C-alpha cells in the first residue's frame, strides 16, 4: 500500500472511530427516551425529542473537543432534571390527584437551576473551551430534561431554561472569578 493511500485509510479509520463514538452517545439518548416512555411520557412527543437529542449528541461527540466532553455531563444533568418532574407527578398523582400538575412548573425551574449550576461548575474546570463546554452541555441537558419538563407544557420547558440561566450564570461567573 502506498503511503498516501495508507494515510487516507488511517484518516478514514479515525473518522469512523469518531462516528462510532457518536453512535454510542445516540444510543444513550435512546435509552433515556425509553426510560421516559416507561415512566409514562407520550411516545410520539418523546420520539420527536429523542430524534433531536440523538442527532445533537452524535454530532457533538463526532466533532470532539470540549463539546464532546460536555455530552456525558449534559446527558447526566438532563436526566436528573427530566426525572424530577416525572417523579413528582407520579407521587403527586397518588397524593393530590390531577391538581398535582401545579407542582410541575416549579419542579422544572428547580431542575433547570440544578442543571445550570452543575454544568457551570464543570465548565469552569475546563482548561480549554469552557464556553463551548457550557453551551453544548446546556443544549444537551435542555433537550434531555424536556422529556420530563414538557409535562408542564411550554411553560415547563421555559421554566427549566430560566432556572438554568438563573442558577448557572452566577455559578459560572463565580467559578471563573475564583480561577
Amino acid at each position, binding site marked *: *500500500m502506498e*503511503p498516501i493511500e*495508507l*494515510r487516507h*485509510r*488511517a*484518516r478514514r*479509520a*479515525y473518522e*469512523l*472511530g*469518531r462516528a*462510532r*463514538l457518536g453512535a454510542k452517545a445516540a444510543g444513550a439518548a435512546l435509552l433515556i427516551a425509553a426510560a421516559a416512555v416507561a415512566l409514562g411520557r407520550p411516545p410520539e412527543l418523546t420520539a420527536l425529542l429523542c430524534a433531536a437529542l440523538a442527532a445533537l449528541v452524535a454530532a457533538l461527540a*463526532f*466533532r*470532539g*473537543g470540549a463539546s*464532546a*466532553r460536555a455530552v456525558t455531563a449534559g446527558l447526566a444533568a438532563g436526566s436528573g432534571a427530566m426525572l424530577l418532574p416525572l417523579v413528582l407527578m407520579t407521587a403527586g398523582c397518588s397524593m393530590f390527584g390531577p391538581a398535582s400538575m401545579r407542582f410541575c412548573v416549579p419542579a422544572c425551574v428547580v431542575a433547570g437551576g440544578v442543571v445550570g449550576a452543575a454544568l457551570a461548575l464543570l465548565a469552569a474546570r475546563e482548561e480549554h473551551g469552557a464556553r463551548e463546554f457550557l453551551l453544548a452541555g446546556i443544549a444537551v441537558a435542555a433537550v434531555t430534561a424536556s422529556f420530563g419538563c414538557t409535562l408542564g407544557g411550554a411553560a415547563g420547558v421555559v421554566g427549566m431554561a430560566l432556572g438554568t440561566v438563573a442558577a448557572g450564570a452566577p455559578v459560572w461567573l463565580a467559578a471563573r472569578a475564583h480561577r
Partner: protein
Amino acid sequence: MDRGARAALQREMCRLADGDRAAFEPVFAALWPVLRAFAARALPVPAEAEDAAQCALIKVFSRAAEFDASREALPWALGIAAYECRTLRKARSRRREELRAPPEPADERTSEDAAIERDLVAAAAEVMRGLSVLDQETLLAAGRGERESSSTFRKRLERALARFRKQWRARHGAD
C-alpha cells in the same frame, strides 16, 4: 523512540483522542516508523511485517477516539501491533499445517502395482496348473463365490487350499 518523542506522541495522541484533527499528521508521522520497525522485528517475512504494521496503524487510528489519556500512547500502540503480528503468525502456521496434511489415498494404481499383480496372477496360475482338475475347479468356484454350503465342499476346499499352499511354498518359498 527517545523520551522527548514519547512525550510528544503522548500529547498528540491525547489531542487526537479529544477530536483535534490537527493532531492526525504528527501522530501518523511518529507512529508509522515505530510500528513498521516493531513488525519487522516480530515477523521474519518482510511482506508480512509490512501487512501487520499497516493493519496495526489502521487499528490504532480506528480506536484513537477511545484512547484513554491516562495510559501511555506508545505501549498502547505497540500492544495493538503485537496483537496483529501474533494473528498473522497464527494464520501462517495454520496455512503451513494445512499444507503439511497427508494427502488423500489415491484411487489410481501405479504401473508398479499393476505389474506386481500381473506377476502374482501368473505365479498363481502356474501353481494351479500343478494341481488336480478337481482341486482347480474347487478353488475357481470358491474364487468366483460359488461356494456350496455342504460340508463336503468345505472339506474339499480345505484340502485343495492346503495342496495349493504346499505347491506355492515349494515354488516360491513363502505363503
